[in-house]
């Protein structure tokens, strides 16, 4: 390790790992100011005398000054719109807290990051969650129990689409448009079967799964907290996404 320090490799590795953690936390759904705060703390615990961290939802820039004439800057461009994987955010936060109290050696730190990234959430739980959420909100907004049950079935289908359309979609707007179109097709089909079924209620339940409501609220919070650029970017993105969803759900209605 001392040779690493001499030729500056150590410092580069520290910055590398910090960026990986920042990127992973951001794409797992951690808020911008939390990631900034975490990276700043981590850098200090690894010997930086000054940390300049700039995080927005699409980019992480870190300049780290070790005080011995070594000052490094690296950038990560983030293309994924970011999901919500709170188990991962939780694990990364725990790892970072541990490192802030007692910095791990850089090799061990890299291994721990890899281990956290490998943990996957059971797919079954996501499907069950989608069904519960869709049925819950179909009833919540005024649907009958039958609507709730049907919304749960469509919720499973929507979840399946979300898992598989992502690989082929050109970007997030097209992805949402396709998911909404396919789900809308199934729902309008159901509505045509019986008069006791309220397709609008089922649709609202399933829309809750796709609608970027949380992202929109978080963007307003970001603006209020002072992360204006991130907030504005996300706010505009969510409006476009919501538009794509509306179009996606409208097309089957026009067809029918």
């Amino acid at each position: 390790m001392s040779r690493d320090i001499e030729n500056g490799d150590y410092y580069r590795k520290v910055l590398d790992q910090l960026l990986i953690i920042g990127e992973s936390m951001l794409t797992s759904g951690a808020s911008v100011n939390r990631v900034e705060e975490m990276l700043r703390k981590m850098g200090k615990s690894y010997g930086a005398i000054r940390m300049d961290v700039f995080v927005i939802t699409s980019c992480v820039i870190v300049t780290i000054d070790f005080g011995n004439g070594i000052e490094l800057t690296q950038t990560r461009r983030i293309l994924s719109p970011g999901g919500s994987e709170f188990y991962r955010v939780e694990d990364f936060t725990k790892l970072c807290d541990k490192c802030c109290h007692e910095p791990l050696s850089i090799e061990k730190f890299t291994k721990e990051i890899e281990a956290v990234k490998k943990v996957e959430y059971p797919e079954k739980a996501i499907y069950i969650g989608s069904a519960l959420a869709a049925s819950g909100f179909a009833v919540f907004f005024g649907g009958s129990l039958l609507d709730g049950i049907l919304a749960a079935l469509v919720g499973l289908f929507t979840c399946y689409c979300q898992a598989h359309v992502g690989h082929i979609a050109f970007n997030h707007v097209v992805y949402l448009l396709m998911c909404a179109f396919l789900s809308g097709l199934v729902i309008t089909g159901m509505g045509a079967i019986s008069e006791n079924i309220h397709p609008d209620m089922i649709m609202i339940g399933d829309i809750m799964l796709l609608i970027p409501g949380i992202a929109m609220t978080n963007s307003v919070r970001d603006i209020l907290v002072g992360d204006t650029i991130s907030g504005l970017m996300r706010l505009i993105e969510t409006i476009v996404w919501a538009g794509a969803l509306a179009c996606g759900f409208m097309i089957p209605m026009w067809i029918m």
Partner: protein
Amino acid sequence: MWIQLIAGTVGAIGFGLVFGLRMKYIPVAALGGFICWAVYLAGVNFVAEGIFWPTVLSAAVTTLFSELCARVLHIPATAIYTPAVVPLIPGSTLFYTMNAIVQNDWMEARRMAVVTIQYALGIAIGMSLVYALFTMIKRSRKIIDVKQSNM
């Protein structure tokens, strides 16, 4: 009312799973979802008419609940807060707004957009208030610690 409370709680559980919350914290998120909607309903009935102030109140109480839970359970507060606040999320009105735009009904679009903004702003303000409060408490604690160690 009870139907909405139960449905909201079920929705919060569902979103807890969708957002990848660990199983052991799901009951906490469910309780958060229940509290969120209960406070909102209480706010509408007893505090102020309309959407905005009940939403601020409900979001603030839900954030307070999740911050306290986060302290006890040692997890990020967002993990509890996000599924818990879902019943307030203006998902349906955001959709109605876009729906009206797609159908070329601009009056309805404007009306629904205002409702959506009220919800989104209300949640964000309620959340930011509690967030600011907790940050200030944390900072003042740090200052007190430093002063004590200097004595």
